[in-house]
């Protein structure tokens, strides 16, 4: 039954395409490049941030001789005693003590801190070390100000207040951001597939023709089965990549979450709206079929992968273009441009998936949109299969649509 549905030799093509790709080093390098790059960027930024934090702390704790004049009356005596700083009444005296080397630093706090600068006079300690004076001058101000304030105000000023918002829809708890996550997965997945794997899929379609293998292979398998075998193999490889990347991310999260103080995620808190997930899946499958059909059509019509890649930008641009009006897709759904983008098959995938994710696509619109996508995908596939069959032995010239539908007679 399986054979009849997929076609003669489908399984052999599928296995060959999957196994040979898994054997390639480039597949694993490409696969691991993304998480490794992500980890490297995260690691560097984490290291840099922890280094600067500890450097700032070290500088602030650094002991050196300080004197200051506080005309603002902000610096508390307790804080001054804590760091062993003395006060000087005269600004010029403070400056001259620094100049003769009797003081490491002198801070002059003006009466109006809001409009005038705090002046720092200090011994040169080098480009980076000189920052310590400002850190200490600032720390003195902050510590003194916080010491004079209630814990509640301190919490407000230091952004330590926690908020919890609950919104309702039809009398039930409704968090639009959380609601987006499950149906939004299809949009992210689709976008990643077309951007990351589109070119590879195109090359796979052109491969037989470019290598002059078409004739030999088409005596053993129907062109349609060959295409479907390749597409299914590619989708399987994408699935493998997604599973591996997600696995690495999850493993890294559980291994490092305590060490890096990562926030905890409660996956069970993600709402699962079955209807929206089903609609998202249907749009995703129809979009993927349409995209694959377009790739096959382009690949079949062009003699080489190089030629095909030049035309590959056209479907990509059409599909990705609606992202530029994504705010309108969320807020202005009655706009005629948005209606056009939502129902024109070659731009529809992203508007349909995004609107379904944010919850402004009603069921009737989803049905019409998915039907348009599916019907177009079937038409494109029929044309693509015909192009593939006709173009399979056109090793050096491009096929035209006119040529495709030109009647062959005997």
């Amino acid at each position, binding site marked *: 039954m399986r054979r009849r549905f997929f076609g003669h*030799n489908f399984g*052999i093509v599928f296995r060959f395409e999957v196994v040979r790709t898994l054997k390639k080093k480039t597949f694993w390098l490409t696969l691991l490049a993304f998480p490794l790059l992500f980890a490297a960027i995260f690691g560097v930024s984490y290291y840099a941030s922890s280094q600067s934090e500890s450097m700032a702390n070290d500088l602030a704790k650094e002991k050196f001789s300080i004197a200051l004049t506080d005309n603002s009356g902000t610096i508390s005596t307790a804080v001054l005693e804590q760091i062993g700083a003395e006060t000087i009444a005269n600004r010029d005296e403070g400056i001259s003590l620094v100049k003769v080397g009797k003081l490491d630093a002198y801070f002059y706090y003006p009466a109006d801190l809001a409009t005038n600068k705090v002046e720092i006079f200090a011994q040169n300690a080098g480009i980076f070390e000189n920052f310590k004076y400002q850190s200490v001058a600032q720390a003195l101000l902050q510590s003194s100000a916080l010491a004079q304030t209630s814990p509640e105000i301190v919490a407000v000023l230091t952004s330590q207040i926690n908020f919890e918002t609950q919104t309702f829809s039809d009398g039930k708890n409704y968090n639009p951001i959380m609601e987006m996550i499950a149906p939004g997965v299809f949009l992210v997945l689709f976008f990643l597939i077309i951007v990351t794997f589109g070119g590879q899929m195109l090359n796979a379609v052109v491969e037989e023709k470019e290598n002059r293998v078409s004739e030999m292979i088409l005596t053993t*398998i129907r062109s349609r089965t060959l295409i479907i075998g390749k597409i299914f193999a590619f989708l399987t490889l994408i699935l493998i990549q997604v599973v591996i990347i997600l696995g690495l991310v999850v493993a890294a999260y559980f291994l490092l979450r305590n060490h890096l103080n990562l926030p905890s995620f409660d996956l069970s808190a993600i709402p699962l709206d079955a209807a929206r997930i089903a609609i998202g899946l249907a749009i995703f499958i129809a979009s993927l079929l349409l995209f694959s059909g377009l790739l096959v059509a382009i690949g079949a019509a062009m003699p080489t992968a190089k030629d095909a890649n030049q035309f590959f930008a056209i479907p990509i641009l059409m599909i990705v273009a609606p992202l530029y009006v994504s705010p309108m897709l969320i807020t202005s759904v009655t706009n005629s441009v948005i209606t056009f983008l939502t129902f024109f098959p070659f731009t529809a995938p992203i508007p349909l998936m995004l609107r379904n994710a944010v919850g402004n696509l009603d069921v009737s619109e989803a049905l019409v949109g998915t039907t348009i996508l599916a019907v177009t995908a079937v038409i494109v596939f029929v044309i693509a299969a015909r192009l593939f*069959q006709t173009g399979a032995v056109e090793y050096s010239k491009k096929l035209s649509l006119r*040529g495709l539908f030109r009647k062959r007679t005997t």
Partner: protein
Amino acid sequence: MSFASKKVIRDLSFKVHRGETFGFLGSNGSGKTTTLRALLGIYEPTAGELLVNGRPYDVASGTKIGYLPEERGLYKKESVIDTMVYFGQLKGMSRSDAKDFALDYLAKVDLSDYVTSRIDRLSGGMQQKVQLGITIMNDPELLILDEPTKGFDPINRRLLMDIIFGLKKRGATIMMVSHQMDDVEKLCDRILLLKDGLSKEYGSVASVRKKYGGKHIEDIFVEIYGGVDFENEEHFSLDEMANPPGKEKR
């Protein structure tokens, strides 16, 4: 059969008997490859029938066909063994049988050291050997060879001849397109000469030769398709080619 308004094949009717070696001959562009592609279902004829074992060829029919097309090629980035096993499986062999056949064949043609090499690392001659091996995988009952010796060095040409003789001995039906008329005379039982999509001669090699007064096939070919008399300057002049009429000399 025609492409757009140009008729490539017209009123062509012929039969290839089981177990015979049939020469399908004609000048360039006479429609030989188109006929073979239509026979194998790569092109779809809009009228007429091309039958293999009494029915149109279908990849799932179980008919064992070995096809060496005029346009040669292999998956360049795959290994020799993977490529051969893949084609063997597509032709109906089990994976282990295909592997055994491939290893045995590669040993016979001195390519044992290249079993796991990528195809694009092999020389042109080695690639031809691999393609020949693929063509004869799964013991074909019908072997279709389109200009089989095209681009072959003498060693591979000899190998091909041995293969053809071997398969012929085992009762395979062979249909070959060739411009090597001495090969045709040596190998073929019957021939068909195609000109502008029409059959010009069709019959046994002996009967066609007899019809033309015992001439060799190559001479008959030249007679039918019209050759160039290199000794007659009125027909062929290098000077004229260099300075065609109407082109002013500087």
